[in-house]
């Protein structure tokens, strides 16, 4: 695929790639995208898309409070935390 830009897509996906990974992935994506081109053989202009195999619409439940994880449990797996919050690098200067 001539218009597949690995650097751009990796940026969208927020994945840092090494130059070797970029090279290898570009080649493999070329093969895979070449293969999935075959879908263009089919005329699907009058076909509705399927998002889910079982058609369910508007699944709702009563808006009630219930049990949930405690703050301590929710933070237990955090890589960095302080004062009962997740720690991240500064976002706003």
């Amino acid at each position, binding site marked *: 695929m001539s218009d*597949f830009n*690995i650097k751009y*897509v*990796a*940026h*969208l*996906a*927020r*994945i*840092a*790639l*090494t130059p070797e*990974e970029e090279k290898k*992935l570009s080649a*493999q*994506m070329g*093969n*895979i*995208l070449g*293969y*999935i081109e*075959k*879908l*263009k*053989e*089919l005329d*699907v202009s009058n*076909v*509705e*898309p*399927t*998002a*889910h*195999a*079982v058609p*369910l619409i508007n*699944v709702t*439940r009563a808006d009630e409070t219930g049990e949930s*994880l405690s703050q301590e*449990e*929710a933070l*237990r*797996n*955090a*890589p*960095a935390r302080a004062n009962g919050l*997740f720690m*991240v*690098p*500064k*976002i706003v200067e």
Partner: protein
Amino acid sequence: MALNESTISELTARLAKREISAREIMQSCLDQIARVDGKIHAFISYDDKDALAQADLLDKEILDGINHAKKPLFGIPIAIKDVMAVKNQPLNCASKILGGFKSPYDATAIEKLKSAGAIVFGRCNMDEFAMGSSTENSAFGVTRNPWDTTRIPGGSSGGSAAAVAADETIAALGTDTGGSIRQPAALCGVVGLKPTYGRVSRYGLVAFASSLDQVGPLTKNVSDAAVLLGVLSGHDRRDSTSIPQPVPDYAGALDGKIRGLKLGLPKEYMIGGLDPEVKSAVDAAVKTFQELGAEIVEISLPHTDYAVATYYIIATAEASANLARFDGVRYGARVEGKDFWELYSNTRGAGFGGEVKRRIILGTYVLSSGYYDAYYLRAQKTRTLIRKDFLDAFEKVDAIITPTSPTAAFKIGEKSDDPLQMYLSDIFTISCNLAGICGISVPCGFTQNPKLPIGLQLLGKPFGEEMLLRIAHAYEQSKSWHTQRPKIT
């Protein structure tokens, strides 16, 4: 027969008579793990003390009398694929990115197993985030096929299938997004069932492709799969895609009556890459069904040739969205950067393995601006055609027969450098997930040299698990394939 080699129904009968204890069953599995798992590596980890403590609690309960009607899995060890949350146990999805994560809660399927009296133990190896067909894509090393340790066990639930085949557990849970229960079951010579989409709650299952994922059992025979499915099934308010449909008595449906049923053979499935030994095993199974009184009907699933491409667009698109949550902020391993953008990219670059990166990249691309209609929307429309193929076929037949996999287990490393070839090996299993129907793989023979298991796939109507299990059981009981066990060397 050693306890760890027994089936759920055999153990249940002996427990009820108090000939054996839950501790003895669990210990027997742990002994087998100590004997063979160095060669197989079906488990990423297991907590033997916790497993035995669960068994001891059950043995105390036995004193008050066991009610197997209420607790159909009483005293039965069940191993869990490393993609489902079990409270206070590690959950890694066979990835580095989750670091030392421990689950703060139980998945619904796990809650149900525990309420049914099962001993929930172990973290079965898998392809990272369930992406793969060989269990080679694990950050914790490859799992080996118990029938030939130079070969792959299939995937992505390869650890679960190998653990059952090697008698390291009585049964296991797996997950199936495009064949990840059925294909490893076939390659390891055990039974694997993918329920209809919405039959089993996905709450507490780490999502790969949310519109395709289902949890299901891997067992030593069809009857055990029926018992486990009965426990796992049912509506869950915590999973809005689970379906409020009554749960029938699956085990009670195994009455052997298949005379007069119509079974469809799709002509599109006789493809070039089908191994001759697999073909002849499936042909022989078809003959057996005729002898059992079923009628064989040739059917057509005209869009079969588009299934792999459709699947790899939809599954990767959903995966790219689902795996966005692994960003080093709320859980898992973090790799710092100069700002939060770099923190995300560095964490994901270091934490994800090659196949996961490949699929996220593909999924991101097919959803990206300018390509969405050409790829993702087109794939969703093709999915409609594939689903319609099956619904049309089920107007004429009660179930569909196919091979589970075009070949028996391949060598470790044989396809790992060619992702497209690996994807094409899923040809017979992925349509089932796209269509949202149910499917099962049962052993149907062996290749000659080396001796490797071959799987027969049966596909059933949405919520047609009773019929599917009845047909699979009738076949299984007419043969003895499922009683053969590997000699682990």
